[in-house]
Structure formats: C-alpha cells, structure tokens
C-alpha cells in the first residue's frame, strides 16, 4: 500500500484504534504506546500525504477520499491536539474505568475526524461524521451517571444536525447524481434559488450544531462538563471545528454563487455574534469549571462563525486562525482543569481555591491560555482577534464589532473567575497535600501547547501560510502582502509589528520585574495567604475567606434581563412536549382487547367508506 495515500493514512488511524483496544488486554503499556504511536504517526503522515484521490464503492455509492489544502489545515488542528490528548490521557485515565473502551473510542474519533476532512464527497463525509458522533457520544457517557444524560442530549442535538445534513445530501444526490462535492457544487447553481436556500440552510444548520452555534448549543455545556477532561480538550478544540469545516465548505464551495449567499452569511455572522455574546454571559454565571469552559467554547466558536460568514480574505484568515488557536488554548484549559480534577477530584469553582503553590505548572498553563483567550498581546489569541476586528471594521460591520468586542471584554470576567477560583485566593488546608501532576504525561502536553500560543503570538506567519493556501483553495484572493512572518497588515495598509510588540512588552516586563525583585530583595518577605488584613482578625485554619461564591453578582444583576431567558430551557421544553405527546399517544394502546378489535373494525369501515367515496 502506498504510504503517502489516504487509505494507508486512515488504515493507520483506524487500525491503531483497534490494535490499542486489543493490546489493552495484553499490557497497559503496550496499549499506551500503540495509541501514542498511532496519533503521532498519523500526524507525521500528514506531511507526506500525496495528492492523488482514492475511490471505493460501497453499497452502491462511490466514496472518494482525497486531500485539499483546506482540509489539510483542519487536519493540522486535529493532529496538533490529538497527540497531547492521547499523552495526557495516559495518567489521567489510569484512575478511570474501562480504559480500553476509552482509547478505542478516542482513537476512532480522531480517525473519523481525519476521515471527515479527507472526504471529497458528501456521503463519506456523512459516514465519518456519524462515526465521529457515536464514538464521541460513547466517550461523553464514559463516566456514567449524569454523563449519560449529557451524552444523550449531545447525541440528539448531533443527530438532529446530522439528519439535516443527510436530508440535504439525499436531495443533492438526487439532483446531481453524484456525491462529489465538486459535482454537487456544479449542479447546485442550476437549482432554483429557494431550493438552494433550503438545502444550504439545512446543511448549515447541521454543521452549526457541532459548532455549537446558538440556538443549537444546548448539548455543549453538559457534554463538555461530563466527558473525561483529555477528551473534552479534543472535543472542544478539534471536534467542534468539524462544524466550522463543514460550514466553510458549504458556504464557499457549494453555496457561494447563490443569490441568497450574502444575506445568509450576514445572518450567520449575526448568529455568531449573538452566540458569542450570550454564551459569554452564560459562562460568567457558571460555577463549574468545565461548564464555564464549555460556554466559553460556544462563545469562541461564535467568533469563528463571524469570521467565516463575513467572507473577506482577512476575516477568513481570522476565522481559521482563531479555529487553531482556540483549539490550542481551550485544550490547555481543559487539560489544566483536568489536572486539577485529577489531583483534587473537584471542578466546582466554589470549592476549589488557592492551588497556585501546589500546582504551579497548571497555573502557568491556565495563565497563558487565558491571556490568549482574552486576546491580550503578546500571545496568539491577540492575532486572531486583531484580524477579526480589522476585517469587521473594514467590511462595514460596525455593530458586529461591538458585539464581538463586548463578548471579548466580558470574557475577562469568566477567565478571571476560572483562574482565581482554582489557583488564587487563600490556600485551603484540604489541599495541603495536593501535588503537581506528573511531568511527562501531563505537564508536557500543557507546556507544549503553551509554547504554541507563544510562538503563534510572535510569528503568526507559521500558521498563516497554510491558512493562505487553504483560502486560495476556497477561492479567496490572498495577497502576499497581507501578512509576513511577524507582521500583519489590514486592508487600509495599517500594520502591526508583533516582533516589536513582544520586544517592548518583554523588555518592559523584565525591567519591571527585575526592579521589583532586586529592590530591597532581602527585606521582601513571603507570607502565607492566611496572613491578610482582615480588620486584625486571624482566620483560623478551617476558615477560608476566599470570595468565590456569587463572584459576579453585581454584573449578573446588571444583565439580568438577558440572563433570565434561556434558549436551552425553551428547546428542552420542546423536547419535553414531544415526549409528553408521545406519552399521550401511548394511550391509543389501551391494553384492552375490545378496543383493539374496535380499531380494526373502524379502520376497515373507514377504508371501505373512503374507497367507496373515491369510487
């Protein structure tokens, strides 16, 4: 088999999954080694992936696989997160039950994501999409208990999305007679505009479910909160990006020529903006670290959708850049929260506190990640947001700028709450013996990703190069003077020099830090966090004065009119109503033989009456 071909690539990915599963029964170490090897080899193979396409017939349909620059970029995201995820799982999952199942599903999920990306036709995309859905569903319910509920919710939302996609696929197939995206796109433009709108609408709806776009985000908080932490990193970081991938494909490969393209994209951009704003507000309310991050993910994906929907080269660059960066820093955050959970068994922000001296590396990871998330220079997050704002302003979306900026600023609130509640505040006696997580399997993935945020902050060109080729593939004009290795330009010709920026920030920071450290160094004392000014009181050992509960009460009061309504509750209500209606329908089956006999007779009478009437 050609080792640069897609089949080999997928064979490695899927085969590794089953091999790891089988080897679990031989030895734990072997399983881990194979799992790590699988993801690393497939990540490495991405570099040598050949251009040729590959077709196979299955059930009367021709499935075509092949790579495009666009899919390669997303595959890069997957690979970038898959390796740390698997590495992080080793120690993390050692405590959990059914590790074999976990690795099987994890690796299948990863492989299915590659499959989605390398599908050139809609059906194989759908097949891999569903494989990804069920394997991630199984991962979500891995913990059992509450996770089951969350998992089912996730699956149902996903199923709604997936079947919307399938609906369109069937119709598109019927129209064009081919499943290849190119052919579909070609015959798509020949349809009447309303049909185009319907099809693109259902497709976009389906993909946006995975991306967690409001109002279809209801699964995200529960699923992210309940799934095992390493997988959550992949879930939020890479899996949700599949929705973005699909939306990009639909918008720019199929739907672009339609007369409805522009209004739909405009609508989508607003949906993204509103999603980011509302999800940010919800994130501020959360008291569970993982739920907080879940809402944050929804919000961040909202940004990506904004950029994706605007469709200017700059905005697309922004969208894809944020897609990568969000994957990285959200993975860091989920890893760190997972590390904390691993050591303390807690994710409740009201109970955690003061871990900074116990888990400094996790703290550093979270710090880097939230600086990146809050778009503060000099880390990578800033670059993405800069591109996004510039593109928004230059494409005359002034109010969208405000919405985006609002949620970006409001995101300081929840990131601060996250880092404060977990790591800062008074140290708790309960956590006295908490140790930092092991280096190789848990710290290393976190630190490696932290390094990525740092490097992309200085040299975004590393990421912008593949993005540019991906965008060129999608048909965007990318001029080579839009960016250089460490400089960005907007369409008005203004530039921002990231290298100068980091030098200034770095120099000033180091100077300030040195002055602070050296000046009266010997008279500077460390005191414990119990030694604080509390009107002269000494907090006893069991007293903890950290202010964590209802942390943003004033803010919540200010935005109460918005927060008092819930889309999720509304959708849940619909679900409940359907369920109750089903319950009601069950009364048809009374359990009484006479009734059933009457049904038969009445049905026959009805048939005969209808027949005679028709005649």
């Amino acid at each position, binding site marked *: 088999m050609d080792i640069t071909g897609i089949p080999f690539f997928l064979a490695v990915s899927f085969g590794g999954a089953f091999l790891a599963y089988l080897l679990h029964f031989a030895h734990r170490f072997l399983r881990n080694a194979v799992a790590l090897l699988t993801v690393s080899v497939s990540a490495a193979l991405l570099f040598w992936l050949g251009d040729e396409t590959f077709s196979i*017939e299955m059930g009367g349909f021709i499935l075509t696989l092949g790579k495009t620059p666009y899919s390669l970029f997303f595959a890069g995201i997957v690979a970038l997160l898959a390796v740390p995820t698997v590495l992080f799982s080793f120690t993390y999952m050692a405590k959990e039950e059914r590790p074999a199942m976990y690795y099987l599903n994890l690796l299948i999920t990863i492989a299915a994501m590659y499959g989605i990306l390398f599908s050139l036709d809609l059906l194989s995309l759908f097949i891999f999409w569903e494989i990804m859905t069920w394997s991630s569903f199984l991962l979500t319910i891995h913990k059992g*208990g509450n996770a089951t509920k969350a998992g089912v919710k996730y699956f149902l939302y996903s*199923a709604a999305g997936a079947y919307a996609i399938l609906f369109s696929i069937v119709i598109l197939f019927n129209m064009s007679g081919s499943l290849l995206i190119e052919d579909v796109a070609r015959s798509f433009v020949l349809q009447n505009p309303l049909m185009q709108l319907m099809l693109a609408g259902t497709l976009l709806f389906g993909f946006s479910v995975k991306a967690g776009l409001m109002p279809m985000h209801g699964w995200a908080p529960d699923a992210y909160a309940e799934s095992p932490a390493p997988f959550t990193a992949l879930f939020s970081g890479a899996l949700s990006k599949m929705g973005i991938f699909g939306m990009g494909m639909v918008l720019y490969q199929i739907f672009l020529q339609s007369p409805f393209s522009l209004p739909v994209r405009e609508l989508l951009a607003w949906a993204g903006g509103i999603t980011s704003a509302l999800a940010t507000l919800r994130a501020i309310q959360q008291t569970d670290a993982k739920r907080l991050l879940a809402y944050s993910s929804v919000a961040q994906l909202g940004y990506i959708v904004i950029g994706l929907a605007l469709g200017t080269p700059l905005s697309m660059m922004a969208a894809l850049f944020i897609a990568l960066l969000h994957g990285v820093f959200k993975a860091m955050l989920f890893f760190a929260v997972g590390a904390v959970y691993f050591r303390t068994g807690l994710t409740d922000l009201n109970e955690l506190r003061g871990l900074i001296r116990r888990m400094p590396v996790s703290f550093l990871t979270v710090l880097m990640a939230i600086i990146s998330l809050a778009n503060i220079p000099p880390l990578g997050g800033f670059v993405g947001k800069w591109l996004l704002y510039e593109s928004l302003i230059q494409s005359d979306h002034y109010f969208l700028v405000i919405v985006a900026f609002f949620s970006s600023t409001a995101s300081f609130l929840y990131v601060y709450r996250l880092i404060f509640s977990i790591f800062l505040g008074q140290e708790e006696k309960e956590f006295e013996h908490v140790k930092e997580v092991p280096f190789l399997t848990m710290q290393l993935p976190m630190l490696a990703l932290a390094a990525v945020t740092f490097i992309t902050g200085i040299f975004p060109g590393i990421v912008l190069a593949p993005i540019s080729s991906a965008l060129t593939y999608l048909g965007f004009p990318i001029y080579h003077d839009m960016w250089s290795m460490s400089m960005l330009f907007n369409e008005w010709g203004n530039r921002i020099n990231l290298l100068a920026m980091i030098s200034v920030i770095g120099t000033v920071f180091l100077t300030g830090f040195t002055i602070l450290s050296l000046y009266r160094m010997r008279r500077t004392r460390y005191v414990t966090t119990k030694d604080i000014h509390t009107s002269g009181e000494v907090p006893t050992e069991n007293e903890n004065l950290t202010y964590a509960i209802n942390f943003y009460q004033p803010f919540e009061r200010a935005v109460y009119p918005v927060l008092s309504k819930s889309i999720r509750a509304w959708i849940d209500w619909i679900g409940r109503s359907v369920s109750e209606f089903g319950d009601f329908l069950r009364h048809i089956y009374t359990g009484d033989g006479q009734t059933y006999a009457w049904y038969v007779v009445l049905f026959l009478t009805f*048939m005969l009456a209808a027949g005679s009437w028709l*005649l």
Partner: protein
Amino acid sequence: MPELFPLSPVHYVAAPLLAAFLLPLVAKLSRSFIKILPGLTFLYVLYVSAVLFPHALQSPIIEQIAGWAPPLGINLYYGPMAGLFASLFSALGFIVWLYSLTQMKQEPLDRFYILLMMLVAGATGIVLTGDIFNLFVFMEITAISAFSLTAFLREDDKAEAGFKYILIGSLASTFVLLGIAVLYSYTGTLNLADLALSMEKVPLSVRVIVFGLFLVGFGIEAEIFPLNGWAPDAYSAAPAPVSALFAGITVKAALYALARVTILLFPFAGSMALISILGLVTLVISELAALHQKNLFRMLAYSSMGQVGLAIAALGLFTAEGVYAALFAMINHAIVKGMLFLAVFAMAGGSANLDNLNGMGRKKPVLSFMFTLGAFAIIGLPPFSGFWSKLSVLTAMGQTGNYIMIAIVLATTIVEATYYLRATGRLYLSEGSPVESKTPLSAIAAVAVLAAGILWIGFFPGSIDEILTAGAQDLLDTAKYTEGVLKD
C-alpha cells in the same frame, strides 16, 4: 444435483413440520433429543437454503405439489425474494434455537420447540406458497403457534396478552378468508398467478373492498397502525426468543404476503400511496409511543412497529429502489431487532423494566457492547447495517421526490435515537445491583452471530446488493411471476 434425494423448497416447510410431529415421540426416547432435534432441523433447512438459494437467484424454482400443474394444483414459488426470506427465517430459527438452549427454562420444552418449528414452518410457507388459500392456511399455522407462544409463560398477564392476540388475529383470519372467498366467487381460482391474470373479471368496487379486507387482514399481522394493538402486549408477554421471532419472522411473512398480494392483484396507484402513508403513520406514532416507554420489551415492540412502518413506507413507493430499500430495512430489522431482544433477555431476564439495565456495562460487558451495537445499528449509524438500509430508504424516497417523507423519516430517527440511547446510557450507569451472573455461551454465540451480521452488512453492504436487487425485481415483475408459474 448429486444428492441422495432431490432437495426441493418443500423441505422448508416439510422438515420443520415433520420434526414438530416427531418431537413428542423423540421426547419419549430421550430428553436431550428435545433440544437437539430442532437444531438439526434448522441446520438441515439452512443446508437446503445454501444449496437452493444460488439457483433461485438465477431463475425461480417452481415446485408443484402432488404433480398438479397450476392453476389447478398447488405450487411453491421459490424466487429470489422468497428464497431470501426463507433463508432468513430458517437462519433466525436456528439462532433462536441456539439461544433457547440455555436461556429457555420454562417447561414443557418439547411443546415450546414444536411451536417454534411450526411458527417457522408456517412463516416460510407463507413466503413460499403460490396459492392464496394455502397462504391463508400457513398464516393460520403461524398465528396459532404465535398465540400459544405468547401465552407460553403461563402467567395471568401473559395469558391476557395471548388472548388479545387471538382475538385480533382471528379477526385478521376472518377478513383474509372473506377476501379470498370473494375473489374465488368472482374468478374461480385460488392460484395467485392465475388470479393476477383474471383480476379484470372482478369489478373495481369489489376489488377495492377485497383490497381493504386484505390490507386489514395482513396489516394486523404486519403491525400497521391502528391494527397493531396486540403487538406491544404480545411482544412483552412472549419469551424474548419468541419476541425476536415475532419481529423477525411473523411480521416479515405478513409483510411479504401483503406486498405480494398487493402488487399482483391490486396494482393501482392509490393502494400504493395508501400503504406508504400508512407506513409513515405507523412509523411516527410507534416511535413517539416508544419514547416514554419504561418497559423494555414494549419499547422494543413499539420500535419494531416503527421499523416495519419504515419498511412499509418504502415498499409503498413501489419503485425498484423502494422495494430494494424495504427489503433491506426488513432484513436489517430482522437481524438487529432479533439481536436486541435476545441481548436484553440475556441481560435483564424476563423483568422488563428499563432500570434492570443499570450498570450492565460492567456486569455483562459483551452483551452490553452488543446491545449498544444493535442500538446504533437500528438508529442507523454508520458503519453498521442500519445506516445502509436507512440510506437506501432515503435515496429511494428522494428519487420519487418525496422530500417530506425524508424529513419525517429523519425526524422519527431522532426520536428513535432518544429512547435507544437512553437505554444504552443505562448500561453504563454506575449504580445497579452488583449481582454477578454468567451468561451461557450459547446465548452469547447467538447474539454474536447476529452482531457479526450487522457488522458484515455494515462494512460490506455490497455483499447483499445482488440479492436485494434480485428480490426487488422478483417482487415487482408480475409478468415474470405469472409466466413462470403458469408456463408448465
């Protein structure tokens, strides 16, 4: 054929019936024969299938009973479609036997196996026969053994369910018999092929009435809404292996009969649309009814009805793709639902509450895995068999431009996913009674065979493509059927 004695489709019916009559005698000799004989019978029938089915795919085998040529004599029509179903039935019979070896403990076992074999024989007879009265007889055989099996566990509520089944089932027989009588009075023939040719003798209004009678009669066995009231009770009352057979065999046989009769005798557009709509209604209502169901077997029963509704909806399209899809859905359903019934029974036993699944993921990992597999397959997730069947249904609908139907089917799939995943999730709940119990190998083997089928079709849907295409052709091509039967 270099056999000791010539194999013929008759053996499908004859062998189980013979074995059923022999069983009480054999039981006198040794108790252990009771268990072995049915297995041997099913194996033999499977062997017959293995030999005959490839031939049937090429050209239908038409067997005349007692040497009388049609239309005077009774004939068996063993075409691709019939062959497919007959093989499927005997295979399911074998698997259920395998499963019952250890899981079925309710005495008298000999009577259980007699009824089992009669059920299979009757259903196979429905599929094979070319004579409409014979069809009625076989239907009665099937129905009576089904009634008895429903009440086999001999508890009050089971008896009640059995009684309901008898009540409704006898209505069905009455209507079918009435229909046959009317047809006979007009045409003077009972042979299906001959009837098909002489249908113009029957006035249109009578045809409509007879169609209505047949629809109700077969519809009751095929679980069409609102005629399926018996089904939830019967499924939950019968021992699970029998329920698996209900889902896999009786319903399929009735569906076959309905399809065959409708296509041969009542090929007007209205009837097809009606069947399609009825299928959709059945699908929607059963899936919704299953949504809140706490009783596992009832849940599976509703789901069964839903799946049959899906198949009927596809069948009602009456295009080659539609029938192909319907066949695919039926096969998929027979395998998957059979497996689910068996797996659930092996895990939760007769107690059918959903809570009994709690924590099974730890106690019985293999069966839980199989259940999960089955649930995924029936929801229609790739790469399992259900996906391809559902996809073929959808494309068939798409080709006729019925986008609304597609939407309805997909929407019900979401409902289906809800309750199946709720059940799947239960498996992996942490709580649950910590009772350890070994599942016997035979049960696991039976379930595993079906699971292998799911995976096989899932990964190689092309492998049954040929059979299904031939089956669809066979069903739709009425001219070929009548010619084939009447040429001798």
